[in-house]
């Protein structure tokens, strides 16, 4: 019976693949030319890189909701984490001197790279998400090397950092709503506003992505032996 069900699912999957393949190979030409519209309005958007302009100016509302979704996922994890006394710690971290030396060398460079990515997002590929991802990777590296303890319930400063990016974006959007439409940057201030929002987003995204790992992260070996 189970083999019959599995066979049916596989057959349905093959049929779906064939249908989609036929549909993809038979698509008509698109009627809306989006790259042309983006290029036409790029000069007034405040940045020179089209992807950043789309992310933070033309589709800024999507980015605002996305950072809210990130924050919600972190809140979900915090609520699911349960009492912070797991039966056994997840990882036993023995401090490795070579890894620690490498982490101490690499992390300042990673923070510098994150700052560069944030700044470069206006002119070339980069931006808030990439910079935040590099910051989160630095935090995970520190944790795995044993230099940064895993997070239990976040304190006040950490909560401010986690929610700060979203609140800053929301404040800018609300401030603009008073005078103009939602997220309608005045063209002479658009570059500065985008950089401000991206800076807040970088810190927040870095902290949230790091928190996704560190809330369940490696407990140091000393704590493992005493539990």
């Amino acid at each position, binding site marked *: 019976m189970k083999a019959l069900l599995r066979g049916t699912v596989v057959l349905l999957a093959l049929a779906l693949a064939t249908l989609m393949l036929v549909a993809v190979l038979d698509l008509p030409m698109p009627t809306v030319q989006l790259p042309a519209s983006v290029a036409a309005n790029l000069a007034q958007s405040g940045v020179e890189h089209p992807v950043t302009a789309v*992310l933070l100016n033309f589709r800024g509302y999507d980015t605002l909701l996305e950072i809210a979704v990130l924050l919600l996922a972190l809140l979900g994890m915090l609520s699911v984490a349960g009492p912070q006394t797991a039966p056994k710690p997840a990882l036993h971290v023995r401090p490795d001197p070579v890894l620690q030396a490498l982490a101490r060398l690499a992390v300042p460079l990673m923070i510098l790279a994150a700052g560069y990515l944030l700044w470069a997002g206006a002119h070339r590929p980069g931006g808030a998400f990439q910079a935040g991802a590099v910051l989160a990777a630095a935090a995970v590296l520190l944790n795995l090397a044993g230099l940064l303890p895993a997070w239990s319930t976040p304190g006040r400063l950490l909560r401010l950092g986690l929610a700060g990016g979203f609140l800053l974006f929301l404040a800018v959007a609300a401030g603009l709503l008073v005078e103009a439409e939602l997220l309608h940057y005045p063209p002479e201030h658009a570059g500065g506003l985008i950089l401000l929002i991206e800076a807040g987003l970088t810190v927040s995204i870095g902290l949230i992505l790091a928190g996704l790992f560190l809330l369940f992260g490696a407990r140091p070996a000393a704590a493992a032996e005493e539990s």
Partner: protein
Amino acid sequence: MTPGLIYAVTGLLLFVIGAAGVVLLAHALRKILAFNLMGSGAFLVLVGLAQRTGGVDPVPHAMVLTGIVVAVAATALALALVRRLHVLQVELHAKDASVAETEDA
């Protein structure tokens, strides 16, 4: 046969493999892996189809960037739920085992 079209076809095959995996695989971690494959396939289709005539389209790039970040958040939440479920199952089995021992004694 532009790169966009090749990767769009790859993306839809990945989506179908992921969808079949979510339905057929038993372990929760494998379902999460398959779900991520579906997401990656969908992103490839999004960008590949927009660039199937050879140009560069920045709007799907921004959408996929958003999608990658949301996918990692969803994966982290799903993994937290699976870990919590596992902890509760372990506690439940330990309780059943201790109840069975006290009944035997």
